């Protein structure tokens, strides 16, 4: 499938789902009655039309091999593995930062990121991760006085 056809079908599909959801929105009994629905309906219709138009033109036109969609799930497997691990790590960071505290959580996520991206340099990665979290804590937490969680090591922190 070509990139344009994929984009067109994606837009038409998302636009349709959005349009139907907009149709189901409740109407106000007074004031700006159709207000909350009208704009989303127009946007949904525009997405469907643009998507259908792009798909239509693409089917009529012969696309070259260069235009074929390739997300690289097979050819760039290593890239996708890194993306998957960082995605999980990022979400885990958000969920655990209050419990672990800013410094521990930031060191952990930086360690994951550096180990994935800068393979084979354990000492360097640990140094970068620890320094990054401490410097950012000093910068944002102490200098700019943002409220940052201290977490598990609250009593061990000298600052």
């Amino acid at each position, binding site marked *: 499938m070509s*990139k*344009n056809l994929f*984009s*067109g079908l*994606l*837009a038409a599909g*998302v*636009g349709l789902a*959005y349009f139907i*959801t*907009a149709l189901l*929105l*409740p109407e*106000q009994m007074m*004031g*700006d009655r*159709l*207000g*909350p629905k*009208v*704009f*989303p309906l127009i*946007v*949904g219709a*525009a*997405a469907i039309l*643009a*998507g259908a*138009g*792009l798909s239509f*033109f693409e089917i009529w036109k012969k696309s070259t091999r260069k235009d074929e*969609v390739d*997300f*690289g799930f097979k050819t*760039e497997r290593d*890239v996708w593995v*890194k*993306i998957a691990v*960082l*995605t999980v790590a*990022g*979400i885990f*960071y*958000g*969920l655990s*930062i209050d419990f672990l505290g800013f410094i521990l959580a*930031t060191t952990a996520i930086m360690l994951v*990121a*550096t180990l994935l*991206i*800068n*393979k084979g340099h354990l000492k360097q990665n640990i140094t970068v991760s620890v320094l*990054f979290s401490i410097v*950012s804590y000093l*910068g*944002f937490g102490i200098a*700019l*006085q*943002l*409220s940052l969680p201290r977490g598990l090591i609250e009593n061990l922190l000298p600052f």
Partner: protein
Amino acid sequence: MQEIFANLALGFETAFTLTNIIWVFIGGVLGTIIGMLPGLGPATGVAILIPITFGMNPATALITMCAVYYGAMFGGSRASIMINTPGDAASIVSCFDGYPMTKQGRAGAALAISAIASFIGGMIGMIFLIFLTQPIANAALKFGPAEMFSLMMFALVATISLSEGSILKGIIAITFGLMLSTIGLDALTGITRFTYGIRSLEDSIDFLVIIIGVYAITEVYKNFRDLDTVYNLDAKSIGKVAITKQEFKQSIGPMLRATPLGFFVGVLPGMGATIATFMDYAMEKSISKHPEKFGKGAIEGLAGPESANNACSCGAMVPLLTLGIPGSGTTAVMLGALTLIGVRPGPLLFAQHPDIAWGVIASMLLGNIILILINLPMAIPLVQLLRIPNRLMLPSVFGLAILGTYFLNYSSFDFILVMITAILGFLFSKIDLPIPPMVLALILGGTTEQTFRNSMVLSDGSLSILFQKPLSAVFLVLAAVSLLYALIKRRKKAA
């Protein structure tokens, strides 16, 4: 005229504090470094440096953002000149003659003229900015909802039609951005829309989360394929970072011609510095007595586009500051960051907070001077940073993006959103779906809908109000013309 000078004096009073000068310096250096590093660029730079403005007062935050933006514009061409790899799209043209100059052993002159041309373009661009902002802001105060809606439509349409790529894909990107902007509680009626039962979405999506996802983290993902790229950089061969009198004489004409061109291209939504630099390069080549020298190390071919680039960034501040409409990806990110700290650019900014609005303008003048002082003597140490391989730089960019996400709202849900957005941004890049129109639509979506609905209430549901108001009709005609122009341009290109 007197009003402008009085406001400028107020601006200087705001900008010239020790704290602000220090932040202009820090922002300028960081911006130069980020603008210089291939694969990052100004939009990503501003996105990942948003956290440094937290805890600042609005004027200082805005001044710092501008310094980062401006610094990135100064730094963008360093990599083009030294390693033939542009720091951002606007610096592609700088490769044409900058890199040949380096190969001829004239890297010092190339780096010097790049900084000098950026300075001259920036300073003259600032003068245009000073004299244009107040009249536009005053005129914009008289806009009703119909005029504002039509202006938004023009900005959105111009963004897709004046940029490269498929128009339909641009429209799709805009509809995606508008869809995201409608998620959450409807501000006018209190109805919850498109949340699908997820309570965290009721407060609507913070567009800065999306911006960090698609600009900062997606850029990290895109660079995963080139982790071990190391650029050959011979710093010893740079020589003295200076130009001769003869070289200055050759460059002054191109710089003075490029500046107004760059500025007015920058004012138009969607055009941006890339188009300005290409247009200027083509113009200089066509009027040159020695066009055959272009592409082989002609200093004019570097000086003109560098001035156009910086003048364009001044021009882009006009719609941002006076109308609240970002004309490019970077100014869209800046608008997001400013909204976060409680500053809403637009005509009211000049009426209600002239100290902030004019403080920023004054700080840009100051920033321009500081940046040339940084970029001339520190050119050689700065370009050494190009030796840093991606595998060392990317974790820091990722870390800053994560911190930025956390500092926005201290919300766990934002991390789910930012990681999903980053993957979507990466997937969109694989199918060539443009990100800037989506971000622009997401940012302008709320105001676009609100002004549309207000217009409909005023006209009892009739679309004719958009054509009855003269200025509104003009904006809609401009939108149609820019779309038509894009269609003709693409048809010619295809033929």
